[in-house]
């Protein structure tokens, strides 16, 4: 199987090269020059295409119209090759858990590059900046923005901004100045370069790369705060990178003499303009998308397309206005996710999610493969030991220093301080990637005599960080965190207790309002609920957003009660034969062991452990962990769980209230349906709140009618979910009592 796919892969590449060679050999007329890269339409091929017009000797039944299809064919072929490479890489899971996928893809890129070079004697396919920045990067970043855990991101925004802006500036300055100093000191020999060029190089190599970060942190499951720090930084530092790159590029063009205070001030201002302007463009497009999805009820089939098109447009618009394109598309994704998820039909939402992942994964694969291929090009390689080694050293060391320094300052103001180990991982996780390579390839050779040196160094830096740091990241994380011996199998009591603790912590956090209501956040929530949701979401979507509405619409007590009765009645029947439920719950291994007639105790024990493993409710915190993943989409299991728990809690509360209320003051009148907001009715003097009373559920014949009546009563709009809960609760309670009294 492995051999076959490898052969297929090699075959595809050979096919690509030979086709090109053959075609070029037989071409009549002007031959094309060096780089027909995928994505660049070879317009001068069209003249040779088909060859109609000039000399037809007779009707040709079949013609070989290579030039007709060359460009799209090569593109499609390369995408196929990248896909097959990914398949090859994923064949062996043991390998991918040690070496991150990105590293393996780069290696495959090297192999392919070697083949192509061998066939062509030059590197015909490289990762050009145009292709990279326009066709490969946007979907990766859109994916990052769309799936961004907003709450986490915005609550850590301050720290992220500090790292992104100040950290990147620090890195750029120190690396640039450090290299310049060493050059002055003669460590690099004789190269035609100056301070400004060093600073430019520093600025493009300083930026942490989002693609690489995702690719590596995917395997390593670090805690969410740490992840969002590195990830957020990698996304937001584009604002700084773009500005620094452009500013220093302009400075180099101007020459050293022209730089004065005015230019520097202009540079600083341009940072703010670029960063905020880019974000603003993104937000505008997010608004557009949300508004658009509000009206697409009749064209649900192409609804998903809008987000991709508009996201891409936001990227291009920002690029056109020379603002930060990455920031634009990130904020577009971040801001629109909530509204389009609410507005669009569920199937459209699923489509968007999956297509987003396909595009992002595909792009990432292509990027890494081409990063590998681009290296196999002797024309590009200039080796300067001093330059390269010093660069590696500086980016590593200065990153550590920068992160520790900034964290020390931040921890004074932060609510939850970042630990030492987190800082180490954060420094070590500052990976450079394709963005740096794309930027360096964009340099003008005439202005930058040492462009090839910089390209080589960048490639080496990228390989070093992605491969070495990628491979060692997981062991490092494990080594730093786990200082004790391996854990033995937990006892049942410990398992249950662990889960209880998780739930407990979540509850206490909610009660004490730890992750939550800041004054500003509260204000923002209120503003958002009142104005934005009204503006951007469909009315039907707004209603169903409210948890309580959801649950009450689904909470059919009659069904629930009868279900419980059914389970109790039929469990006697179940123990007699291997029924479906038992087979679902207990893995087949257990059943085999049953058959082999082990002692009752052992199998019981086994059953118990497996049962717990499968059926304990996960705590909410665990659901939130590892939320962002490139290849893994969370299924809706947690939503069902949440609803189940919620239903239970509601049921038990209602039952206890009912039991407490029985025989006490007569129920109040049911209010008939009306539009205006009701004042919450507090039922006073209810007696002890004891949800632990396990009351036997009664069966009410009128429950169905009651439920529909109550749901229509709850049909009026409220602005605050906090009031509706006791309100609806009490209403329902009154209804119950009304029914009870009337029986």
């Amino acid at each position, binding site marked *: 199987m492995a051999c076959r796919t490898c052969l297929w892969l090699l075959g595809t590449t050979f096919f690509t090269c030979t086709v090109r060679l053959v075609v070029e050999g037989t071409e009549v007329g002007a031959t094309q020059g060096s780089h027909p890269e995928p994505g660049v339409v070879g317009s001068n091929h069209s003249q040779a295409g088909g060859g109609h017009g000039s000399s037809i000797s007779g009707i040709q039944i079949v013609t070989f119209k290579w030039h007709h299809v060359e460009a799209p064919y090569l593109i499609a072929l390369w995408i196929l090759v990248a896909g097959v490479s990914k398949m090859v890489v994923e064949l062996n899971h043991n390998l991918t858990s040690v070496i991150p996928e990105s590293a393996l893809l780069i290696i495959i890129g090297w192999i392919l590059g070697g083949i192509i070079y061998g066939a062509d004697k030059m590197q015909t396919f490289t990762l050009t900046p145009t292709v990279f920045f326009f066709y490969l990067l946007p979907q990766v970043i859109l994916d990052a923005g769309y799936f961004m855990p907003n709450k986490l991101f915005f609550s850590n925004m301050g720290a992220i901004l500090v790292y992104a802006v100040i950290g990147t500036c620090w890195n750029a300055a120190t690396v640039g100045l450090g290299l310049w100093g060493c050059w002055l000191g003669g460590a690099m020999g004789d190269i035609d370069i100056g301070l400004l060029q060093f600073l430019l190089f520093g600025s493009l190599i300083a930026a942490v790369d989002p693609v690489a970060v995702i690719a590596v942190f995917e395997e390593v499951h670090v805690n969410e705060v740490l992840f969002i720090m590195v990830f957020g930084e990698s996304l937001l530092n584009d604002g700084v990178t773009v500005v620094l790159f452009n500013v220093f590029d302009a400075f180099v063009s101007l020459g050293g003499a022209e730089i004065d205070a005015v230019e520097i001030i202009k540079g600083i201002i341009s940072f703010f303009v670029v960063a905020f302007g880019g974000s603003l463009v993104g937000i505008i497009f997010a608004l557009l998308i949300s508004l658009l999805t509000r009206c697409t009820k009749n064209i649900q089939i192409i609804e998903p397309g809008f987000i991709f098109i508009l996201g891409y447009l936001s990227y291009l618009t920002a690029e056109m206005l020379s603002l930060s394109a990455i920031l634009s598309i990130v904020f577009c994704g971040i801001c629109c996710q909530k509204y389009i998820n609410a507005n669009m039909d569920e199937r459209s939402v699923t489509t968007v999610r999956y297509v987003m992942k396909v595009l992002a994964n595909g792009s990432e694969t292509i990027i890494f493969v081409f990063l590998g291929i681009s290296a196999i090009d002797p024309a590009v390689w200039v080796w300067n030991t001093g330059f390269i080694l010093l660069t590696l050293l500086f980016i590593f060391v200065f990153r550590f220093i920068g992160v520790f320094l900034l964290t020390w300052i931040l921890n004074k103001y932060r609510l939850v301080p970042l630990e030492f180990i987190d800082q180490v991982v954060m420094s070590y996780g500052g990976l450079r990637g394709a963005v740096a390579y794309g930027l360096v390839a964009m340099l003008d050779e005439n202005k930058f005599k040492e462009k090839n040196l910089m390209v080589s160094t960048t490639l080496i830096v990228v390989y070093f960080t992605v491969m070495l740091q990628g491979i060692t990241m997981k062991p490092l994380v494990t080594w730093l965190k786990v200082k004790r011996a391996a854990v033995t199998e937990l006892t049942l009591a410990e398992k249950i207790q662990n*889960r209880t603790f998780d739930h407990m912590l979540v*509850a206490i956090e*909610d009660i004490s309002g730890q992750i939550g209501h800041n004054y500003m956040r509260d204000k923002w929530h209120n503003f958002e609920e009142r104005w934005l949701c009204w503006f951007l979401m469909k009315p039907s979507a707004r209603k169903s957003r409210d948890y309580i509405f959801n649950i009450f619409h689904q909470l059919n007590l009659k069904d629930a009660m009868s279900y419980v009765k059914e389970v109790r009645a039929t469990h006697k029947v179940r123990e007699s034969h291997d029924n479906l439920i038992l087979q679902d719950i207990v893995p087949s291994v257990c059943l085999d062991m049953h058959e082999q007639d082990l002692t009752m105790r052992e199998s019981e024990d086994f059953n118990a452990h497996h*049962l717990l493993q499968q059926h304990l409710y996960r705590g909410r915190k665990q659901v939130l962990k590892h939320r962002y993943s490139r290849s893994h989409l969370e299924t809706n299991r947690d939503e069902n769980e949440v609803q189940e728990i919620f239903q239970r809690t509601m049921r038990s509360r209602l039952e206890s209230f009912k039991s407490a209320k029985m025989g006490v003051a007569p129920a109040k009148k049911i209010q008939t349906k009306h539009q205006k907001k009701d004042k919450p009715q507090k039922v006073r003097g209810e007696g002890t709140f004891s949800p632990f009373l396990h009351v036997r559920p009664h069966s009410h014949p009128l429950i169905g009618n009651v439920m529909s009546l109550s749901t229509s009563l709850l049909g009026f709009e409220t602005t605050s979910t906090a009031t509706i*809960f*006791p309100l609806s609760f009490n209403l329902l309670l009154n209804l119950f009592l009304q029914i009870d009294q009337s029986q």
Partner: protein
Amino acid sequence: MGSTNSTLSKIPNVEELMQETGFTPAHIVRLYDRFEALDKEKTGHLRPQDFGAINRLAMNPIGDRIIGAFFSPGQETVDFHSFVRILAHFRPADKKHPKDPSMPEPVNSRTSKLKFAFQLYDQDKDGKISRAELLQVLRSMLEMQVTEEQLESIADRTIQEADLDKDDAISFEEFRKSLEKVNIDHKMSIRFLR
């Protein structure tokens, strides 16, 4: 800092509270703000419905039990002192202070935390977790597809593992012993905001 002081002066016996629980003034102020936010009618006491207004708690399988833990037996309301005292259980343990045998056990020590957890199970406060009580907890934490007899078998096994004196119930000592290997301080602490 000015607002902190003014808020602090509103709370009665705040010095004693800080001493007992180990919270800093900033923490206390924060918790007081939260208390007031929950106490919609400004009575100075919280009732179960006020806790019930926290939506997310309804989605927690043991949410109601935790709410119940705030109320001492027989009491219907929680004042700010009790609120803070319960929350103090979840402070990370102070590593710096040496163990002073003459002082009473601090609220956030391992033993106190375990006692709190024990009380969640032991509803009738007889000092033991009986089989029925364990069943109740399990029932709330396991999904609905689990049948009654499976629940019972799990409960039986759990008691068997932990019960050393064979009285078919788990006392506090047995509870503590069964959790020796668990890092309680890590599992039962949240970092409070400054």
